């Protein structure tokens, strides 16, 4: 199947098992050779050395690998790197506040102790940013529902919800 070409109406469809991709991450473009099988998560961590995005279950169940793709939160473990081409990827390393330092939600996680071991934290924060952007952080109950894709095995949920709620209130027009 390696780099086989299949004739098809409207032009040949190229099937490849390795390919060169260009990923735009945190505003910078990176060209790299990947296998078809390589996930966006593995490309970010192992190839671009952006280790802030964590690998938990690799099955879309824990949310530790949450990143923004064109501004929407997604599980980086459920995206093939080759399919992330042409999309704007934002990882925890690319998150900035107006002062160029911490994003308001990062600050709120510090203020509210929104973590214990910290492993799920980058995914929680990226998911929280998406949750606020979507307008689903209107109440603590809504935040609990719309943050269900992020698991914290330390159980810091109460403080995570407070951090997101406070940030959402602060950023509401």
């Amino acid at each position, binding site marked *: 199947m390696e780099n086989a070409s299949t004739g098809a109406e*409207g032009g040949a469809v190229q099937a490849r098992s390795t390919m060169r991709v260009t990923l735009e991450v945190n505003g910078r473009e990176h060209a790299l050779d990947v296998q078809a099988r390589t996930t966006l998560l593995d490309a970010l961590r192992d190839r671009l050395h952006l280790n802030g995005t964590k690998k938990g279950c690799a099955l879309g169940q824990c949310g530790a690998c949450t990143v923004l793709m064109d501004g929407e939160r997604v599980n980086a473990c459920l*995206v093939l790197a080759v399919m992330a081409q042409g999309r704007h990827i934002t990882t925890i390393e690319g998150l900035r506040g107006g002062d160029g330092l911490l994003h308001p939600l990062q600050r709120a996680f510090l203020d509210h102790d929104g973590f214990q071991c910290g492993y799920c934290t980058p995914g929680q924060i990226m998911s929280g940013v998406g949750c606020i952007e979507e307008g689903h952080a209107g109440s603590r109950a809504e935040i609990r529902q719309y943050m269900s*894709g992020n698991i914290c095995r330390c159980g810091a949920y109460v403080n995570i919800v407070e951090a997101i709620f406070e940030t959402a209130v602060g950023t509401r027009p």
Partner: protein
Amino acid sequence: MSGLAYARAASLESATEVIGSHRAAEVIAGGTDLLQRLEEHVLPPPLVVDINGVEGLRAIEVDDHEIRLGALVRLNQVIESAPVRDAFPAIVEALIVTASPQVRNLATVGGNPLQKTRCLYFRDQSTPCNKREPGSGCGALEGRNRINAILGGSEHCIATHPSDFAVAMAALDATVLVVGARGERRLPFTELHRLPGDTPHLEHNLAPDEVIEGYRLTRTPLARHSHYLKVRDRGEFEWAICSAAVALELDHGGRIADARVAVGGVATKPWRLGQVETALQGRQATAEAFAEAAALSVQNAVAHGDNAYKLALLPRTIARALTELRERL
């Protein structure tokens, strides 16, 4: 892990040509189920054909008569659609309780009904499964089958279909738009999936060269009065152990003029319950009528041990869904 090849299709025609000529090739859209299978080595396809570059499949088109969903519409896109919420509330309610927000930003309406079962034995390569490996046997029949089906099973397979969206689509008489090498065709959503019978590995009625282009949903008063109720082991991000999509149309005297009932989490495919719908017709919309009709849902049900609780849970879920719906009519 190696051995996966990737191809990008610029049109559905070229995609159908590739999947028609490579039997093991699969279309990839959102990829949320397919990447889990790659990770766990469960029927990993040797070739995926990416259709995300195909134009014209990302829109929700609305007119006075119907709503059309393109195959690449994301689940969250449907949830945020005011026209769909207004005309087909059961569909939006089913999607809100589907997966997580992150998954719903990736997953597509085209792929969702074609996702694979969550049966423990299908997902665990060390066990027998006729769906994953035809002829190897069914681990669930005599095994841990708490999540398995009581409707539509066979001696070869009792895996449930896991989609919530598909249950709502079956209830609301959706039409599937299909494209293949020989052109386009339509089929009723209820005819998309197959019963396991003695070929549980064959899950749907699409030909090898066919791909879902989208769906049509006719706007009706019935569809507008629809509701989805999901029962699960935890409040969020969990598969249904039982669910019901229901719709009611009442006449001026409060009698049920028409009804739709489809259930999930209990059956091998999205399951319409015609006998329950018929029993509801002409009755006053009372709790008693709902309970009597719902009792018919398990007439042909077969339990297998751990899943016997579903014989009681299914009628109650249907009756509760109908009661909740009546309260807002």
